[in-house]
């Protein structure tokens, strides 16, 4: 009998090989006859991820005609890759959470649904509630392609207890000069020459390293690149930041490149950068006083506004309708107030900002209000971020400065050349 079953198995295997549809049946998701099912790709993890799932859950409970499935796809940079791969495969999600600069890449290739027609069908003034500076990021070529959803600014998070122990006031440094000073005060080496505690950690990840760097350059009154892809990395302002960061790592030895907030949570470094969106995670996980604060200023307080927009790659008319319904819900007042409260991301509309729940929440937790306050000092991110290899090139710049200790002037010149080349290859 054993032989016969072996024959059967082998035959089955051959049939399977010839006929992929058998498998398709096994793995096909049950197609609902009633409600429209749409797929939403989200990024972000921890509190920021869970609260998105909660919004999806609430939406699904409120509607009988639409089911949204939320799928985590990794950090922003990964979503970018996954979406490109999905487009190449012709199998796209209906909605996707994109890092705002990435919108350009996809809108340019015509793979996102133009939202103008949907807006026209809504009542007049539908868009007026959104905060204009945030809505602006959703436009490409004068057409709306995305709505603002989880918008964030870079913040400086400091360990209040560590500051106090070092004899410093319980507040974040206000300028980059002060940042350097605080760092020195916080740093402790033991007798063996091992660093027990350092002032600051600089993020060099491909996702957000460039963002904090941009923030510092803005504070010095400079720019990384403008809308026409003129690159200003060799300007005195950008050079000043590059030199400062490098000196703190290699001359002062009061800072390190640090790619995870674990160093901050484990009290190895006293100050780190993070998104407003990290606030929920950091406040809930730390066993010390976390003070979220503005990025240090220098000549001015100005930061690149980041975070995400919700865009629609859906190719099916019916699902597009369903996707639009969910877009409205997720960017609407209640969901935004909830998300802002849970994550620390900024509310995207006037009505959400004035939502009674949120106002009450900010009153009870004034520390969280910093995100909202910083909104007065924002400008868009550098255009080079939207190049396919843009964030990678800027990560390499940070690694050259903070790990390889290369001459800042040379690094900035090389980075400029690399970005220029990438622009010529991909946008011209």
């Amino acid at each position: 009998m054993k032989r016969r079953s072996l024959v059967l198995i082998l035959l089955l295997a051959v049939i399977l090989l010839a006929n992929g549809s058998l498998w398709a049946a096994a793995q096909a998701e049950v197609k609902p006859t009633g409600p429209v099912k749409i797929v939403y790709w989200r990024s972000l993890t921890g509190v920021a991820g869970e609260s998105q799932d909660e919004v999806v859950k609430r939406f699904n409970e409120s509607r009988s005609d639409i089911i949204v499935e939320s799928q985590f796809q990794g950090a922003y940079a990964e979503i970018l890759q996954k979406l490109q791969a999905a487009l190449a495969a012709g199998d796209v999600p209906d909605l996707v959470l994109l890092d705002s600069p990435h919108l350009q890449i996809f809108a340019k290739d015509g793979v996102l649904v133009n939202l103008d027609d949907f807006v026209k069908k809504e009542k007049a003034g539908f868009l007026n509630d959104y905060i204009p500076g945030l809505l602006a990021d959703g436009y490409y070529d004068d057409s709306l392609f995305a709505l603002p959803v989880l918008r964030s600014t870079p913040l400086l998070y400091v360990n209040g207890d560590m500051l106090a122990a070092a004899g410093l006031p319980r507040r974040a440094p206000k300028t980059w000069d002060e940042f350097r000073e605080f760092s020195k005060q916080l740093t402790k080496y033991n007798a063996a020459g091992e660093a027990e505690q350092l002032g600051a950690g600089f993020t060099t990840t491909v996702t957000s390293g460039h963002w904090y760097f941009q923030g510092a350059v803005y504070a010095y009154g400079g720019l990384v690149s403008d809308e026409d892809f003129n690159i200003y990395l060799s300007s005195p302002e950008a050079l000043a930041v590059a030199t400062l960061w490098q000196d703190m790592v290699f001359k002062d030895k009061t800072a390190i490149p640090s790619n995870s907030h674990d160093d901050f949570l484990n009290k190895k470094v006293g100050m780190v950068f993070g998104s407003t969106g990290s606030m929920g995670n950091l406040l809930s996980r730390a066993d010390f006083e976390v003070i979220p604060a503005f990025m240090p200023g220098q000549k001015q307080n100005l930061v690149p506004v980041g975070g995400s927009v919700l865009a629609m790659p859906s190719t099916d008319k019916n699902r597009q309708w369903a996707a639009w319904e969910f877009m409205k819900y997720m960017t609407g007042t209640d969901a935004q107030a909830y998300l802002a409260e849970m994550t620390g991301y900024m509310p995207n509309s006037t009505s959400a900002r004035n939502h009674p729940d949120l106002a009450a929440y900010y009153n009870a937790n004034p520390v969280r209000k910093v995100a909202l306050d910083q909104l007065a000092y924002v400008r868009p991110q550098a255009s080079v971020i939207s190049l396919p290899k843009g964030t990678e090139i800027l990560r390499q710049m940070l690694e050259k400065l903070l790990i390889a200790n290369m001459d800042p002037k040379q690094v900035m010149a090389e980075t400029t050349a690399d970005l220029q080349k990438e622009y010529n290859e991909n946008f011209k």
Partner: protein
Amino acid sequence: MRRAAIKHRPLKWYAGRTFIHAILMLATIIIGLPFLWMLTTAIKSPAEVAMFPPIWWPETVRWDNFVKAWNTAPFGRFYINSIVTSVSGVFLEVAIAALSAYAFARIRFKYRDFFFLVMLAAMMIPGQIALIPNYVILAKLKWINTYQGIVIPHVSSVFGAFLLRQYFLSVPSSLYDAAEIDGLGHLKTMFYVALPLARPVLGTLVLYLFISKWNSYLWPLIVTTKQHMRTLPVGLAMVRSAEYSIGPEHLMAASIFVLVPVLVVYFIAQKQLIEGIAAGAVKG
């Protein structure tokens, strides 16, 4: 002579033995320590994880780390995907290998040697060269995010076919002649004569293929863009990118989920696997 020497064990002999054991012990510890470190980290509290020098065993064992890790991603679904793709992949590959092996061992054909060379040439071609073309083919077939997309491109068999062919050849030809006299066709001869005799090597091949399919990372990484189609290794790598909300203890716990099935298979069948691989590679 060697046997005779055993009776009189000089001091030098004991010294030599001790030395040998010391070396083997050291190697065993170096190989085993990462596994132990993984386990103890997985059951520590966050505070214990962030201790230096580290402690080897936590004060209270935190089994709930596994629950938290399990909930960071749909690990149940990943398990199903890994099992479906590995098992079906092994069946297909073994079937294909057996058919080719039998043809090369027992069926007379003018251009057999030429075909054999072509097949061996395929072994020289690194699979990585095919990543992009295969992705394009799969995209055209709409096979991205499907089980067949994960499995089919990797079930052609050169090594397995080669290995089985050697065994089929080593079967005494009188058995084949008997089958022929009984009027058995090639398919029946393969099932009733060749395969049963090759059972030991077949078993090793199945185990070996199962483990390597279970562990594969690059191809499933590329062809799955949807969470519910990810296999365990890809899912695990995704969990790690959640760096801001998941501690090392959860990462290690999640790694253990992925490892358990292979380690169980390995330790049950380690003798067969090790000896099979040694024999296969030496003869191959």
